[in-house]
């Protein structure tokens, strides 16, 4: 049987067999890869050093949460370079990174891996890839909006809002802890604000308008934030 007929046969499979094909298709065709992805990430993670990764795996070894990730930091870097955009941006890795900078300090090629993760988080929000129910991305979004509007972060309202949006059950579960903190004057539901909110907003807007690498805002979360 020549190559052509194998392909013809596999496309004529019934539904049950399609699943298998689906699984095999985790390896993409080269034409489906986003070859410009790596340049975009390298640019916003400040460094061309991303291209010099030798795949030694020191980052994955240094990472305290790599064993919970669907792709380890080493794999993520290679996938970014190959152009597996969707897989990378929908992965749990990006939102599990706690920014402890262990990988950045250890990398023998000087890649700022934590900044790569930040760049991926931003791409994932901008392109609307982020998991809508994942507390980590919701927290980042809420935090962003709160600081944009008030200049400061208020921990109490931030957490309540996050749990309401993601998993209200967690709010009940953490009620006892919240009460304990409140009793000791360590948390309140008051919103903290700076005095000169207007000038801060103007400042942020002016930088946004004058930036050379202006990022396009597609994400509804960001639009909502900048509209207020």
């Amino acid at each position, binding site marked *: 049987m020549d190559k052509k007929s194998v392909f013809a046969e596999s496309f004529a499979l019934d539904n049950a067999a399609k699943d298998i094909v689906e699984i095999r298709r985790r390896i993409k065709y080269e034409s489906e890869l986003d070859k410009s992805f790596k340049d975009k990430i390298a640019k916003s993670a400040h460094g061309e050093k991303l291209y010099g990764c030798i795949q030694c795996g020191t980052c994955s070894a240094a990472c305290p949460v790599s064993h919970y990730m669907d792709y380890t930091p080493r794999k993520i870097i290679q996938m970014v370079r190959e152009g597996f955009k969707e897989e990378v941006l929908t992965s749990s890795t990006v939102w599990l990174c706690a920014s402890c900078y262990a990988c950045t300090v250890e990398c023998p090629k000087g890649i700022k891996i934590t900044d790569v993760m930040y760049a991926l988080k931003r791409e994932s929000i901008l392109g609307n890839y982020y998991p809508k129910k994942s507390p980590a991305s919701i927290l980042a979004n809420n935090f962003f909006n709160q600081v944009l509007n008030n200049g400061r972060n208020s921990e109490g309202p931030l*957490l309540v809002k996050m749990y309401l949006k993601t998993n209200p059950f967690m709010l009940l579960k953490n009620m006892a802890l919240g009460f304990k903190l409140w009793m000791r004057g360590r948390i309140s539901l008051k919103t903290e604000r700076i005095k000169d909110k207007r000038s801060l907003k103007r400042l942020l807007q002016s930088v946004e308008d004058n*930036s050379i690498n202006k990022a396009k805002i597609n994400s509804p979360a960001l639009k909502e934030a900048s509209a207020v």
Partner: protein
Amino acid sequence: MKYIYYPGCSLKSTGKLYEESLLAVFDALGIEYEELNDWNCCGATAYMAVDEKKAFVLAARNLALAEQQMKDEKEVNIVAPCSACYMILLKTQKYLEDNPEDMAVIKAALKESGLEYNAKAKVRHPIDVLINDLGEKEISKRITKPLKGIRVASYYGCQTVRPYSTFDDQRNPVAMDNLFKAAGAEVVDWSMKTRCCGASLTGTIQEVALPLSYIILHEAKKRRADVVTTACSLCQFNLECYQTNIDKKFKTDTKIDVIYFTQLLGLALGIEPKKLGMNRLFSQPEDLYRIMEGGKPVYV
């Protein structure tokens, strides 16, 4: 020399005891400070994940405000006790230095709102100030209640020394250990000094965060530490307030006192516990008080 004190959001809420104890220690040691007027969020971790440039602007505004407030001084030193604030302020300085184009944009925007940033401000961590500006000798002279017999496990957390700090080693920092040696304590040599505590994951993805805190607490107990001292409000919160959750999950006993390094130092300087915000802890460090009064520690 006068320092600009930049509290950051968490030192006004969950880390209130950090603020109280830090300022009490500064007062006791005669370190002059002034709180930064109308400071804003530093643009830390979660903000960076949404918009990097805006995060840098937020940090730059604080730096510019500090320079404005200390106009007449030669040096501008900002003390940022929260690790995330400390790291992000340093990161912003480094980034703007390396990217003159962005620096120009941000400078112009600051000028519009009547501020000026000349990259004059120096970002300092309180440990750095105590060890390098005041010195161990000076501190040991002021100790009135030496921490004799207390085994201290200094926990620095990640962002205090990584990746931009200049005052200590990134893998095995010793500044806090030296501080407590000067105060007469016995320091525990352990490998968890800069391991991640789980950070904000305790609020978001607990299944991942609790094991991280557990490893640190377990190791501290194994090394027979009497107290774990931290220099970051999120670390202290995670390690102290989640102890019951951790014990439930791992069916162990990780009960150990986790306090701020400024609180322990304050006790050694003879400051009243209430002034150090000890009343805000979840449980009082009874063992610590007992050893300080000459009692023997009990190891289980």
